[in-house]
C-alpha cells in the first residue's frame, strides 16, 4: 500500500518535471515579458524578474492594436475551421458511403494536391482574390483555405471504420443519406472532427505570408503580423515582443482549455458501455 502510493508520487513528480520542460519556453516568455529595462540582457539570465513590471504590455498594446488583431485572427481562423469541417465532412462522406464511377481515381487526385507546396499557389491565389476585389477583407483572408485535402483524407479514413451495417440499418429504417450523415456519422466522428478543427484553427492562426499579402490596412491585420509590427528592422526589444506573444497565445490557450473537454469526451464516448 505504502509502496503503491510512493510509486504514484514518483510518477507524478516525473510528470510535473516533464511538464515544466515542455512549458519552459512559454514560462520563460512570460518571465521575459515582465522584465523591465536592461534586465532582459543581463548575463547570466534571470529566471524570474527581480521587479516584475507590466510596462512591456502597456507598450505592446500602445504599439499595435492587438485586440483588433485578435478579433481579425479569430474571425479568419474560425471561418477557416468551420469551412474545413463542413467541406471535409461532405467530401469524405461522398468518398466513403456513396458509390460513383471514378471514385477511387478522384480521391487520389484529391490526395495528389497534398504534394503541391502552399508557396506555389500563393501568387495565383493572390491574383484571384485581387481580381475578385477581396483584398483587405475577411473573405480574402479565408477563401483559399476553406477546403482541405488533408482533412478529407483524415475524415475518410475515420469514416471507413464505421461499420457498413449501421448504414444498412439506417437506410432500412428509411433514413435519407443526409439524415444518416447528420444523426449517425457526425456524432460518431466527433474525435476526428475535433482533431481536424484543432489542426485547422492552429494552422490558420499561425499564418503569416497569406494575411500579409492580401491585407494592406492595419485595421485588418492578423496577430502574427502584429508580432512583426513589434520588431524593429535593426534591433529586437525582447521584452516587448514576448509581451505580444503572451497576449496572442492567451486566447488559443483559453480555446483549448474549454475545447479539450470536448475532445476527450469525444475520444472516450462509447468506449465503456454503461
Amino acid at each position, binding site marked *: 500500500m505504502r509502496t503503491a502510493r510512493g510509486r504514484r508520487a514518483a510518477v507524478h513528480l516525473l510528470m510535473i518535471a516533464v511538464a515544466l520542460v515542455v512549458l519552459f519556453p512559454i514560462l520563460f516568455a512570460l518571465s521575459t515579458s515582465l522584465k523591465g529595462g*536592461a534586465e532582459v540582457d*543581463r*548575463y547570466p539570465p534571470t529566471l524570474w524578474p527581480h521587479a516584475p513590471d507590466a510596462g512591456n504590455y502597456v507598450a505592446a498594446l500602445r*504599439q499595435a492594436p492587438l485586440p483588433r488583431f485578435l478579433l481579425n485572427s479569430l474571425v479568419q481562423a474560425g471561418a477557416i475551421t468551420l469551412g474545413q469541417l463542413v467541406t471535409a465532412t461532405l467530401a469524405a462522406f461522398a468518398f466513403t458511403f456513396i458509390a460513383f464511377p471514378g471514385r477511387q481515381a478522384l480521391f487520389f487526385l484529391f490526395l495528389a494536391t497534398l504534394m503541391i507546396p502552399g508557396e506555389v499557389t500563393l501568387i495565383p491565389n493572390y491574383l484571384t482574390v*485581387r481580381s475578385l476585389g477581396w483584398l483587405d477583407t475577411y473573405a480574402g483572408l479565408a477563401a483559399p483555405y476553406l477546403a482541405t485535402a488533408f482533412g478529407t483524407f483524415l475524415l475518410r479514413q475515420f469514416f471507413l471504420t464505421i461499420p457498413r451495417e449501421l448504414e444498412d440499418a439506417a437506410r432500412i429504417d428509411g433514413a435519407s443519406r443526409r439524415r444518416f450523415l447528420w444523426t449517425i456519422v457526425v456524432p460518431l466522428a466527433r474525435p476526428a472532427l475535433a482533431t481536424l478543427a484543432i489542426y485547422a484553427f492552429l494552422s490558420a492562426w499561425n499564418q503569416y505570408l497569406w494575411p500579409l499579402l492580401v491585407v494592406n490596412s492595419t485595421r485588418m491585420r492578423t496577430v502574427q503580423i502584429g508580432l*512583426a509590427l*513589434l520588431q524593429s*528592422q*535593426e534591433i529586437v526589444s525582447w521584452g*516587448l515582443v514576448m509581451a505580444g506573444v503572451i497576449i496572442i497565445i492567451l486566447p488559443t490557450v483559453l480555446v483549448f482549455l474549454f475545447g479539450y473537454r470536448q475532445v476527450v469526451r469525444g475520444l472516450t464516448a462509447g468506449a465503456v458501455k454503461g
Partner: protein
Amino acid sequence: MTGRTTRRAVLRGAGAAAAAAALRGWRAAPAAAQTPTRITFWHAMGGNLGETVVRAFVNTFNASRKDIQVEAQFQGGYDDLINKLRASIGSSAVPAVAQVYDIGTRFMIDSKAIVPMQDFIDREKFDVGQFEPNILAYYRVGARLYSMPFNTSTAILYYNKDLFKKAGLNPDQPPRTFEEIASYAGRLVKSGATPSGITIAIYGWFFEQLLARQGALYANNGNGRDAAATEVVYDHEEAGPRILEWWAGMVKAGAATNPGRPTAASQRAFAAGQTAMTVDSTAVLASLLSQSGGRFALGTGYFPKPPGAATGGSIVGGASAWILNRRPRAEQQAAWEFVKFISAPAQQAQWYVGTGYFPVRRDAYHEPVAQERLAKYPQFLTAISELRSSPINRATQGALLGVFPEARQKSEDAIEAAVLGRKPAQQALADAAREVNQAIGVYNRTMGVK
C-alpha cells in the same frame, strides 16, 4: 425559391448602398470645399522606434495639409515588403509611396512601375545640395536619382571599454585593421576578461561592407553601375577570400564567437558583456546603450579593413522612398509632397533622434534636437565621420543587382560554410558565386535587361 432569395439579396444590397451613400454624404458635408487626395505609404519600420516615428510623421503631415491625407501601412520587414510589391506591381493594388531597402534598387528600376524621383526634382528644381554626397552616390544610377533616401546607416565597430581595460588594452584606441582586431580579440580572451573577443553575426551586409572597405567590387561592370551586372566577382581576387579567412581564423582560434545569422544574438551577447566587440549597424547605437543599461562604457570605431587598403570606404545601407506609377497622377504628386516632407531637415533630425538612422542631409544636424543628441552620444560621430571620410567610387557606391536579396543569402551560406570549417574560403565563395550568377542570368533574361 431562388428568385426570392435573389430579390431579397438585391433589396438588401440596395439598402446597404443607400445607407453607405447617405453616410458618405454626411461625412463629406463638413469638409465640403475639396476632397483631399488620399495616398498610402507602405513601410517596413516596425517596433517601438520605427513605427512610432513614422506614425508621428504621418500625423504631423496630415494635420498640416488639407489637400493630402497619407495613410501609413506597415507591411512586414524589408523582405516581406518587396515580395508583396513584386506580387502586386502589375496592378493598381500598389501604394503611392513605398519604402524599399537599398538592395531592392535595381529591381525597382527594372520593374518599370516607378516614377524616377529625378523627374520631380527636375520639374521643381528641388535642391539636393544639402544631401550627403555618399548617400546620393548610392541611390543615383546613371546620374539620376530614382528614389529618395529615407533611412540610412552604415556598419561600425562597437566595443566594451571596460573589458579593454581589464585586458590591458587602450580603451580609447579601437582596433582598425583585420590584424589588429584578431590580435585584440585573442588578447581579450587570453587575459580572461571575456569568453569572446568579438562576435560577428553572419550577415551578408557585413561581407559587402568589408569588400568595399578594401575598395573591391562585388559585381562586374563597375558593380553593375556602368552596365547591368552579369556576374558577381567577389571570388575572383583575394579581397573576398581574405575576409572569410580572417573571420573563420578568429573563430577557429577561439578569439571570436559565431552567433549564427541574425544580429539579434550578437547584440544580446554584446549588451550582456559576454563579448568585447561586435559589428553592427549605426542604427542600433541608442538601443545598445539602453540595453547595456550603463553596465559598461561603450566605444565605437570604424569598420575594419586590411592594412594598406587605401581606396576603400563604407557603403550606406538602409532604405529609400519610391513613387509608383500605377497610381493616378494626382496621387503621384501628393506622394512627392510627402517624400519632400519626410526628407526635410526637421523630420530627418527627428528621425535620427527617434531611430538612430542618420540624417540623409547635412543641415538636419543644425536642428536643436540633433545637436542635443550628438552631445549626449558622442559615439555617433564615428558613423558620420566614417561615411564622410569614404571616397566615392564604384566599390563604395555599392553593387546593383536585381537578385540582391538572394545573392546576400548565398553569401551568408558561404560565410557560414567557411566559419564552420566546412569549406575553404575560396571554394565557399566560388560555390556561392556560381549560384548567384545563375540567378542573375535568369533575372536578366526574364526582365529583358541588357
